[in-house]
């Protein structure tokens, strides 16, 4: 037994020396000498020669003049990679995708081919009937209690608005407590469904949103009847009411999250889908001709497109950060 223990100790000590000291040190040296760029994290530099990110790691772009990466379940946090881990049968997945689609989907055929459906979602929403029954918002909150709660928790102003409602609707709150004896002192999120039901009754065809009041310093919440919130939240319900309308399909990678949350690429189709938006914004910013800008951007895209494993493995794609840096180089000096 003594022998076993001593040899165990010796073997672990040797392994520490070899695997934990020599082995990483050797590789570190190889990296330093032969692959300094890769071993250092593939850091790339922007137009001003400052490090703007890693070629391999996605970073967020929100403004219209940039190509946007795939949505990230990790909020592009490269210190905590994460996936959404949503099953196909989980409504949260469908709802997340629908909310991206609402503001960007266009008609594919018919008299309005090429136009956004977003205004029609708003019209439909203002009429306030879904599936032949009144009160869209109330139906939505009842069917998807989790989403209603998520809306309340999403922002502190939302929670404040619900609390304000609760203060003036003590009868509704009392009824909630009666039905849910487990939560004698409900918080804002607990009251989500009750709030939306009552809100929908008082404000048919409206959804709580930011209303800008003249003279008010901070943004106030109030009932609104249009805006991206409505387009996003109610696109799926609008779709269920209009199942046969022909819509332009959006590239799959544009609405699905990647496994790491840091996927630096988008498919070429996704880039083409975005190119009009990007071109018109750069044209507007740099006062250049839009068709010319579009042509130049297309050339940048073509130059950056690549096929994984030289085409053996997958479809054409581009690196979002690299393309955006080139756009910045090309057009920003003209600003």
């Amino acid at each position, binding site marked *: 037994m003594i022998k076993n223990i001593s040899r165990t100790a010796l073997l672990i000590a040797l392994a520490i020396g070899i695997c934990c000291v020599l082995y990483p040190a050797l590789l570190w040296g190889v990296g330093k000498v032969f692959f300094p760029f890769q071993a250092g994290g593939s850091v790339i530099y922007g137009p001003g020669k400052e490090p703007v990110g890693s070629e391999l790691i996605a*970073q967020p772009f929100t403004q219209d003049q940039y190509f946007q990466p795939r949505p990230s379940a990790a909020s592009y946090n490269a210190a905590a990679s994460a996936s959404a*881990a949503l099953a196909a049968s*989980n409504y949260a997945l*469908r709802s997340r995708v*629908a909310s991206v689609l609402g503001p960007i989907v266009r008609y594919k055929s018919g008299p309005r081919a090429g136009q956004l459906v977003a205004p029609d979602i708003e019209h439909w929403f203002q009429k306030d009937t879904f599936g032949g029954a009144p009160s869209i918002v109330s139906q939505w909150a009842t069917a998807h209690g989790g989403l209603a709660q998520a809306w309340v928790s999403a922002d502190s102003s939302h929670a404040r608005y619900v609390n304000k409602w609760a203060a003036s609707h003590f009868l509704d709150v009392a009824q909630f407590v009666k039905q849910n004896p487990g939560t004698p002192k409900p918080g804002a999120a607990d009251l989500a469904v009750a709030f939306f039901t009552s809100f929908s009754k008082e404000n048919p065809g409206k959804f709580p949103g930011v209303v800008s009041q003249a003279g008010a310093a901070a943004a106030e919440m109030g009932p609104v009847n249009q805006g991206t919130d409505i387009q996003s939240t109610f696109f799926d319900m609008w779709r269920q009411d209009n199942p046969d309308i022909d819509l332009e399909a959006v590239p799959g990678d544009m609405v699905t999250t*990647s496994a790491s949350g840091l996927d630096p690429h988008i498919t070429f189709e996704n880039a083409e889908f975005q190119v009009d938006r990007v071109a018109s914004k750069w044209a507007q910013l740099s006062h250049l001709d839009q068709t010319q800008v579009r042509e130049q951007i297309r050339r940048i895209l073509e130059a950056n497109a690549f096929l994984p494993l030289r085409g053996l493995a997958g479809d054409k794609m581009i690196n979002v950060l690299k393309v955006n840096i080139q756009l910045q180089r090309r057009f920003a000096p003209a600003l």
Partner: protein
Amino acid sequence: MKLWIIPIGLLLAATLCAIPLSRYFAWIMDGKFRPPRWLRFFEKALDTGEQTWKSYAVSLIVFNAGLFVTGFVVLALQPWMPMNQDHKGMLAPTTIFNSVVSFMTNTNLQHYAGDVNLSNFSQIFFCILNMFLSASVGFCALVAIIRAFRGQKTVGNFFVDMWRVFVYLFLPASILFAVFFISQGSPMSFQSSFQVTTLEPGSMGTNDKGEPARQTIVTGPVAALESIKMLGTNGGGFFGMNASHPYENPTAASNFFNTLAMMLFPFALVLMYGRMLGKMRHSWVIFSVMLLMMAGTIIWSVYFDTMKPNPAFTSRAASRTYDIPDKTAPGGKIDVCKPRVAGLPVDQHLGNLEGKELRFGTSAGATYAAVTTDVTCGSVNAEADALNPLAALAPLTGMWLNCIFGGKGVGLMNFLMFLILGIFLAGQMVGRTPEYLGKKIGGREVKLVVIALLMHPIMILLPVGLFAATPWGMKAESNPGPHGFTQITYQFSSASANNGSAFDGLGVSYGFNDNPNPAPEARAWDIATGLVMLFGRYLPIIAMIAMAGFLGEKKSAPFGLGTLRDDTVTFGFLLLGTVVVVGALLFLPLAALGPIAEQLGPIPFGG
């Protein structure tokens, strides 16, 4: 057609590499390699003399106990150790227990996230150390079994075998692969993280002072860990999202070799088995059966995941109502309605892209999911939780059978269980005493095999039942209905098979010890899966070494007319039949309640 290039290329390449590799392995393990004198010095220092199978097994257990203590100390002392620039604290005690067991048993189930919870010191002195050593343990156990089968009274020396495996086999291979991974873009530094100013200032939001936030990028000795992680079929990622993270797996080429790396050793070991026993034809039969099953799981997952859209966005043309008889319900039946659903306008010609990375290629995620569970690696390059419902059956099957090449050593050992059982059943059917390698299989051997074989289903079915019925499981599920059940099933299957992949949505992470908001039932998961991993690893290993020891002691009967030939196609079908029938009988109910129910049930399921 392009979809199949990656899987076919992988199977071909791994098979071709396995032939020379198996020759090299056998050469090393038979002690024919004469290392230079300074290396012989270490071998001599470790050598405790030839061991019987019993003392070999004792050494194996003592060594693993030593590994446990070392791992526990390294992880528990993380806050006080060097190379911790980001000041990472101590993990919760149950998580330390779970992680130490997990890495020691070659499972690498991770209830923590490497990029968030581990310092570079822990990554190197805990993860990399365990990856080299735990991979070698399974390898050595198999070599001992082979020697016992050869009728040797002594089965070699455990410590010398360990040295040979990790220094002469794993180390050179790891260096080669690591250099390739660096060339593709895996970082290799001792820095913890660095910050960059995003191209669009403020796109990451603002910090406390109202300035545009910068992006913090975690880096470290990624390439060093990545190569042994794959070669040793360990599977515990440097980053939380494992081989899907662009630093662990930067390109399509790195992904191909990443996948190939985990197949090399398990493939070669099967041929080494035949070479060391002098029965090459027999090992080719085993190899073909395994290859057939692996191809089956790959085809299954690629077909249902890459060639089918994600059903979350597709339409269902008409609603259907099903009557389910139920005595307690009014009217004697419940109506279950699958309502009509209008599809979302999403172009899904590339298959299910939710939880996939683009750069690996279209079918790479599904292929990887099948391979990683077949060879019990457990690394992932796509989110297993977001696989299409039926596609998830492929990784589950890989873990349930646990012998489709399997982990180093243990995979073949598991296969040998099915083999002995198959021969035993066949012998019962024709009324002959069953023999393997010319030795009569007696009651004692079959008992040991059945103990080892039943460990796996017991370690899956019992805890799944327990957790599915209690808040331990119900509070941890993150997806509704049957998929939540699959999450629980997957976690225990992964633990018992010593695989280590997971449906990531399951709430099993406690995080740092001072985490104010841990997953509510994380402690129960840490302890339960930790125990499952321990039993799932050591009981079969010990039982199989004992079985081989007892069998090897017997006299070899001469090859006769009535001997069951073990190198024919018929024998291959006997093996395949045994694995499929036994495996299916054990796990079909789980499959029906989980993935199949999810596919057939309403999508979306509930609110």
